[in-house]
C-alpha cells in the first residue's frame, strides 16, 4: 500500500489538521508515514502545502517526486491546480470549488471552472456550502477530509477515531460537529462518483 498526497490551500485554512488526522489513522494502522509541512512566513495568507506520504514499506524522501502524487487534496481551487506537475497521470484531484481571493490578479472564474472540468480524475465540491449545511463553516477542512477519505485506502472508522483524538480537548460538541462534517464530505464524494 502506498499513498502520496499533496494537501494544499491558503495559510490559515487548516490543511495541517487534515494531515494530523490522516497521520493518526496511519499510525494506528501500523503504516510508515512522512509528512513535510510549511511553517513560518507563508502561513500569513500565502499558498501552503503539505507533502504526506503513507506506505506499508519504507519511505525515503520527505518530498513527493513530480508526477508521483496519487492525490491532490485542496481547500482552494487555484491551489489545487498549482501542484498538477506533481500529480501522477492516473492521480485524482479532490478540491473545494470556492475561490479564496486575496490577491489582485486572481484568475477569472470561468477559466478556473474550465480547468477544473478538464481534469481527467477529479471530485469538485462546494466544500464551504457542505460545511455550513452539515456542521459549521469552520469545519470545512473535515468536510474535505471526508471527501478524500474514499481514496485514502485507510479504514474510515480509524479516520473518525483520529478526529475524536484531535478535537477531544475542545469538548464533545466540537467532536460531533467535525464528525458530521467528515460524513457529509464522504457522502458527497460517493454521490458525485455515482453520477
Amino acid at each position: 500500500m502506498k499513498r502520496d498526497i499533496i494537501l494544499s490551500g491558503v495559510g490559515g485554512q487548516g490543511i495541517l489538521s487534515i494531515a494530523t488526522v490522516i497521520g493518526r489513522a496511519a499510525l494506528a494502522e501500523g503504516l510508515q508515514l512522512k509528512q513535510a509541512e510549511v511553517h513560518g512566513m507563508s502561513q500569513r495568507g500565502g499558498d501552503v502545502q503539505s507533502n504526506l506520504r503513507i506506505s506499508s514499506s519504507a519511505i525515503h524522501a520527505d518530498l513527493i517526486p513530480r508526477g508521483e502524487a496519487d492525490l491532490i487534496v485542496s481547500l482552494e481551487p487555484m491551489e489545487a491546480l498549482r501542484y498538477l506537475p506533481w500529480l501522477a497521470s492516473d492521480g485524482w484531484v479532490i478540491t473545494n470549488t470556492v475561490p479564496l481571493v486575496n490577491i489582485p490578479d486572481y484568475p477569472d472564474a470561468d477559466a478556473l471552472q474550465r480547468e477544473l472540468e478538464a481534469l481527467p480524475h477529479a471530485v469538485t465540491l462546494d466544500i464551504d456550502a457542505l460545511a455550513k449545511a452539515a456542521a459549521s463553516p469552520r469545519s470545512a477542512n473535515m468536510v474535505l477530509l471526508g471527501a478524500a477519505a474514499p481514496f485514502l485506502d485507510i479504514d474510515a472508522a480509524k479516520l473518525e477515531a483520529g478526529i475524536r483524538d484531535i478535537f477531544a480537548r475542545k469538548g464533545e460538541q466540537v467532536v460531533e460537529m467535525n464528525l458530521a462534517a467528515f460524513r457529509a464530505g464522504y457522502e458527497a464524494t460517493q454521490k458525485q462518483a455515482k453520477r
Partner: protein
Amino acid sequence: MEKRELLLGDEALALGALHAGLSGVYAYPGTPSTEITEYIQDHPLAVARGVHRTWSSNEKTAMEEALGMSFAGKRALVCMKHVGLNVAADAFVNAAMTGANGGLVVVVADDPSMHSSQNEQDSRFYGKFALVPTFEPSTQQEAYDMVKAAFELSERFRIPVLMRLTTRMAHSRAVVEVTEPRAENELHSPAETRQWVLMPGNSRVRYKILLDDYARLETEAAASPFNTYTEGPDKRLGIIACGIAHNYVMENYPDGCPHPVLKLSQYPLPRDLVRRMASECQALLVVEEGQPVVEEAVRGVLPGPLPIRGRLTGELPRTGELTPDSVRAALGMSPHRTHAASEIVVPRPPALCQGCGHRDMYTALTEVVREEYPAGKVFSDIGCYTLGWLAPFHAIDTCVDMGASITMAKGAADAGQHPSIAVIGDSTFTHSGMTGLLDAVNERANITVIISDNLTTGMTGGQDSAGTGRLEQICAGIGVDPAHIRVTVPLPRNREELKAMIREEIAYPGVSVIIPRRECIQTAKKHNTAKK
C-alpha cells in the same frame, strides 16, 4: 520499553535531548528551529524536572547561558536558525576554545531555498571554522538518536557539538521509536579551569589541543554508525550523500542503489572513506543540501583527474533546496511523466493579516512620507512587518539583519539623509536594537524610530517577547528624551493622531521613538479562545 511517536524532526530532536538528561534549553525563536524549544516548554518531563526552557533575548545570550550551564556540569541545548548563528558566532567559536564540561549541543536549522529567511548560508562551514564536530541527521529517527550521541561525544571530548538541520528535516513528521529517559547530570565544576579563561597565553595552549582533538574527531567520524559505506556493483559512479540528501538518492532507487554510496551524517569529513570510494569508482557525485561544503573538501582531498560532480559542476542546482527530481537528473535518469503546469495559476505571496496593527502603522507612515517627505527613507527589520515591502504598502527601503533598522537609519542620517526612519518590532528591538539605539542617542542622531509593538514575537508564531511592558523605560534608560517617546494605539480611528506624531518627531532634530502598540491579532485570538 520502546514507544512509537509521530514527530517533526524538530520535536524528535527535542525529545531526544530531554531523554538524554537535558537540564536547559536556550533559544531565540527562528523558523525553522522554533518548534524544538516549544516542544520542550510543553513536555511533562521538562515540567516535572524543572528543565530551563524560557526564551532568551537573542541567540548570543542563549549561547552564553548554555555555555554557563555546561560549565556547571549539566547538559544544555542551544537552538537557533542559521542566521542566528551569525549573532551567536562570537560565543560559539570561543566555546570551542573553552570547551564544554556538561554536554553542550548547538542546534542550527538551515533554510535552503529561503522559505522564511534572508539567505542560504550553510552552518557546516561554522563547524569546520570553529573546529567542532558536526552532526547532520537524515531522518527524524536519527535526529532523536543523534542528539544523545552528540551529548556523549561532547562530554567525552569536552567540546560543544554542532547539530545541523535543514527546513525539510525540521518541519517534516515521521514515526520515531523512543527509549527511556536518562537522569540529569549532577552539578560539577570543570576539572581544568585554565582553558575557560581565554587570555592569549591560555588560548595558545588550548588551540593546539583543539587541533589535535579535531584530528581524533575525524577518526570518530570514520567509525560513526551515522556514516555508512554501502557497496554497489556499478563502479562507474560513486555517490556521496549528506544528511537528508541521502533520502533523495534512495528515493530514485526503489530496488536499491547499484552504485557504492557513502552516507555522511557526522563530520569532520572522514577523508579515508572518501579516498576509498575514489579508489574504486570512475567518477563521484556529491549530493548535499545547502552549499557545496563537502564537494569543495573532496576536491582538496583527492589527487588526479577523477571527475567530481555536484553543485559546483552544474549536475545539481547551485542554489536552493534539493528535491527527488533534481537529484534524479543528477543521477542521469529521465524525469517522471507529469501533468502540464496550469497556465492560470498565479503566485500568492503572504501578507500582513487583516486587522493587524502593523497595517495601521504602515498606512499612517506611508501617507506622511509619500505626501510630505518624498525624500524620506524607511529602514526596516526582520519580522512580520517586513511584509510592508509588498503591495499595498511598498513602505520600506531595507531589511538586512536583526537590529539593522536603527543602525542603518543612523548611518544614513550621519550621511545627511532626512527623514531617516527605522521600523522595528518589539522582539527584534530587544534582540538587537537596543545597542544601536544607544549609538544613536550618544551622537544625537537625527532619526525617528518606530517600534511597532504587538506584544509578542509574531512571525514565528507568538512566543513571549523579552521587553513586553517595559519598552518606554528601556528607551528612556538608554537616554531617549522622554518627551520624544510617544505611544499610541494603531487603529483606523487613531490614524490622524499617529500621523501627527510621525510629523512632529520627523521635525525634531534628534532621536525620537514612536511606539504604536496593539496586541498581535493571532495571539489575541488565542487568548480570547483560552478565556472562553
